[in-house]
């Protein structure tokens, strides 16, 4: 089988994620470690659905998370997590 190519995009940031995996399947991310190494706790996951990210260029399972008092999207793409870079364009 051919290898799937990966794409480089400055607005797509792959991040480390801490998560709880449930015994009946599924998982909930609990914290994100941003590219600068800082860790942000996820207070609440308010929505989970398949979605595309036009900004980051990709698709996955989108977790809508509350971090502090901000709402952010966290995408699970196969076995990697990515986020959209804020504030540009």
């Amino acid at each position, binding site marked *: *089988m*051919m*290898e*799937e*190519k990966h*794409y480089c*995009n400055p*607005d797509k940031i792959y991040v480390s994620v801490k998560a709880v995996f449930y015994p009946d399947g599924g998982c909930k991310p609990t914290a994100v470690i941003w590219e600068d190494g800082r860790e942000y706790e996820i207070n609440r996951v308010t929505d989970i*659905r*398949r*979605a*595309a*990210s*036009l*900004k980051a*260029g*990709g*698709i996955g399972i989108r977790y809508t998370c509350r971090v502090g008092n901000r709402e952010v999207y966290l995408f699970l793409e196969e076995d990697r997590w990515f986020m959209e870079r804020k504030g540009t364009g």
Partner: protein
Amino acid sequence: MERVILHSDLNNFYASVECLHRPEIRNKAVAVCGDPAARHGIVLAKNYLAKESGIQTGEVIWQAQQKCPELVVVPPNYPLYLKFSRLARSIYASYTDQVEAFGLDEAWLDVTGSTHIFGSGIEMADEIRERIKLELGVSASVGVSYNKIFAKLGSDMKKPDATTIISKDNFKQTAWPLPASDLLYVGRATCRKFARWGISTIGDIAESDPLVLKARLGKWGEVLWSFANGYDRSPVVAMGEESIIKSVGNSITTPRDLENNEDVLLIIYALSESVAARLREHGFKCRTVHIHVRDKNLFTFGVQGKLLRPGNISNDIAEKAMALFRSHYSWAHPIRSIGVRGCDLIAADSHEQLSLFTDEEKRIKQEKIEATLDTLRCRFGHFSVQRAVLLKDRELGSINPKEEHIIHPLAFFKGGKLP
């Protein structure tokens, strides 16, 4: 009861998936092209901006670049397209289990039985489009009709991201004015004939005398007439059934033109090995071998012949394929691409009539050798063990048809049979 059939077509599929993943090229003319070094250098898909400059699918790269010098050419990423195709199908599957794929980017859905759950065909079509846009980041056109032919026609009428309805009440206004060539299975040759008889639109086909069409075009004449009138009754082949394998084949456009029987032998061995290995993998034997040859002027033909007995051994398949080739090709031109297919499949473990006149022991030995080869290749890679003949020409011998996937759309009528 009138059926409700949807045909969903992912717009500019390969190019849309690439543009989603590469935001930097979204506002440029983009063409997904094969690898020119391997002589697959043609346009496989393009986005709307590329289409505006007149670029056509199937064109060679330099032609496309002449039309549009700033064209962004990207290589295809089949595994990603397969993933998107699978995800689209899982969206369809939430509306019906009757989904028939037509290539990676198109599918028919029979949603007749789901209308009391999800609403009308149009509502489902709109919802599917919306979900494809949100979940996959690409767009789809959906045709809604009471048969497969008009549903497909509908999905081609308005692009991108639109729903088109062709109903029993409006098909004469919507479908009939369209050019005859828009109808599925009206190709260039048929179109030329139609033109000669003064048939230019789908309506013209519909209003012709079916007996005359049949006399002139054979059985297809009548079929096309029934398509044009909306009489198509062919079912949407349900999921699962569709996966039943009808034949196993591989074809390849070779890195250089094939000049003589030795070249062809080499390729036929490589292809037959792949076909045989895949037959074994799926637990089949084939009774018939089919070859397909295209010369460098793109003249194409196919012939098939029966094996003495069903088999999945590469030698048997290769020898049959080579015999077919020798008796049907006179080397008018060098060859550009060649394909080998095993069809008429039976389960490998079914009972078979032994022959008094073949050496059974030798045959069993061969089967064992091939099984051993499968194991070796599985553990140490495809090129860990090879036929000596493939070493004669490194360029041709280094192709691996089994793992380099070649994607073909499924035949509309399974097995090429008329309805």
